[in-house]
């Protein structure tokens, strides 16, 4: 056992995949199904992925748009079934024990539509808590605690539609932690945030989720700086395949002094890594609807969330 870069303890395997593959075929209509016409063509966003992520580790999947990162995360969260291969989360088989898998994981996405916009933050969290089998006082207490963790107590009874992008992302994190999961999947969590808010979120992940709570984090990112700062190990992912896995420092060192993670990406994929502009639209953090949030975005709480 050793300490992760965020301070958590790295132990036995939390996520394991063996030749995990997903091939999508073109959607077929009723007539094709009735006539049992074979599917033609298809794409393979996840192609024979072998992974082993240790407990307490922050593991990053680094790849460009369309590399298959989201598909991989959705497979590991039981939202998409693999075509081939095996995957285990906390020792539970993804297909055979999908219920047990879901009990032990949390998912944080950037899709702000995944909340009920006309309900308040608290109402949203209490509802999702019930889906994790927490009710009444248990749910209320847990939601209250998590609202404190993500520093949204002051806005808990405002409608979700009034939240800024940063606040919505904090809500997504709070929801991901509702069942106190041992593994937290985060799909490009800083995608819609401006640089300050993104940095706040990264600090929060390191300090609160990894160091304080000892979670295993499986994070997909499009941001080299984020991968370097957060991850104990990263997998360079392109065309559905893992090209190389290692700590950012080791990967850079393998190419010689002065190498950057972008050089590693170029070396293993033959492609130049183009980072997505992470800045949200100007003024998006500020509340133009007059919502009384303090400071906005994610850049608060212990210099973090």
């Amino acid at each position, binding site marked *: 056992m050793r300490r992760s870069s965020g301070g958590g303890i790295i132990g036995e395997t939390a996520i394991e995949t063996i030749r995990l593959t*997903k091939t*999508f*075929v073109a*959607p077929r*209509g*009723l007539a094709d199904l009735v006539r049992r016409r074979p599917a033609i063509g298809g794409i393979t966003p996840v192609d024979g992925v072998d992974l082993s992520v240790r407990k307490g580790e922050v593991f990053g999947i680094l790849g460009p748009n369309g590399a298959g990162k989201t*598909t991989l995360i*959705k497979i590991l*969260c*039981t*939202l*998409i*079934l693999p*075509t081939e291969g095996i995957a285990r989360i906390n020792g539970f088989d993804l297909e055979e024990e999908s*219920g047990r898998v*879901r*009990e032990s*994981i949390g*998912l944080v*996405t950037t*899709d702000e*539509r*995944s*909340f*009920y*916009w*006309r*309900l308040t933050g608290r*109402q949203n969290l*209490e*509802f*999702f808590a*019930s*889906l*994790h*089998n927490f*009710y*009444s006082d248990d749910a209320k207490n847990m939601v209250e605690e998590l609202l404190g963790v993500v520093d949204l107590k002051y806005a808990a009874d405002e409608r979700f539609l009034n939240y800024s992008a940063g606040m919505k992302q904090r809500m997504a994190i709070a*929801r991901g932690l509702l*069942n106190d999961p041992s593994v937290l999947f985060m799909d490009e969590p800083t995608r819609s945030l401006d640089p300050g808010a993104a940095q706040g979120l990264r600090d929060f992940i390191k300090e609160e989720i990894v160091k304080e709570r000892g979670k295993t984090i499986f994070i997909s990112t499009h941001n080299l700086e984020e991968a370097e700062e957060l991850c104990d190990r990263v997998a360079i992912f392109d065309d559905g395949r893992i090209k190389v896995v290692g700590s950012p420092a080791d990967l850079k060192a393998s190419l010689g002094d002065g190498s950057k993670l972008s050089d590693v990406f170029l070396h293993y994929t033959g492609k130049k890594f183009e980072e997505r502009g992470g800045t949200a639209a100007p003024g998006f953090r500020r509340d133009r609807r007059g919502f009384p949030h303090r400071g906005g975005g994610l850049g608060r709480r212990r210099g973090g969330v």
Partner: protein
Amino acid sequence: MITIYRKALSFVRRSYMLQMSYKFEFFLRLFFMFFNILTYYFVAKLIGTAGMKYLEPYGGDYFSFVLIGIAFSGYLMVSLRGFSESVRDEQMMGTLEAMLVTPTDASAIITLSTLWNFIFASFRVLLYLIIGVLLGVSLAGANVLGALIILGLTIVCFSSIGILSASFIMIFKRGDPINMLFMSTSELFGGVFFPITVLPAWLQTVSHLLPMTYSLNGMRHALLQGYSLRELAPDVGTLVLFSVILLPVSLLAFRYAVRKAKMEGTLVHY
């Protein structure tokens, strides 16, 4: 059991809060319901005793007959639309994926998402009956227990058809044949607006294949004529048979649909 009850309560609370965030729409729906009832009241006045021959088994009054028909056929509409609309609404709102990543089973999510629609439908039925009584419908001799048994079986039958319909939506997104089939045939053949005995004998065969026929027949006999449980047995028995066949089939179909959507990665497509 307690878990599912608490979960159900949580879904109802969520739907109620969402509904109440659109108060104007909620009250409009209630308000325009009165016009619907009044329309049939005056149609009944026009018809008078003209259809007595056909209406005699139900007490002879057309307004009473049609009131029960339109009130309880609402359950079929809720079932047929409710489940598939729940799937579609959650897909469009983007909340379906967030729900499916929790330990709550997909079938439970879809079933519980529709609960509020049934509660609203029941509230509407109650209002229909109250207004009906105010307009002269007599429910004095109603067999309430019999009516409740038929209501329970009706909900199970219609819900099963609704879950089958939602399974199609899950896979094909639009163009659900189950919905279209039952929506277009139930009002004509199910005895909502007129007794099925009005239909030619060969068309009555179609009526006998629809749960709606037995549901409305039993409900009218229970509420308007106070039939005993023994007298209601044929309708109750047929509804039980429909339930025993349709419920497991629909749940299996939904499970298959979710698996297929997960296989194709189209769970959140609409």
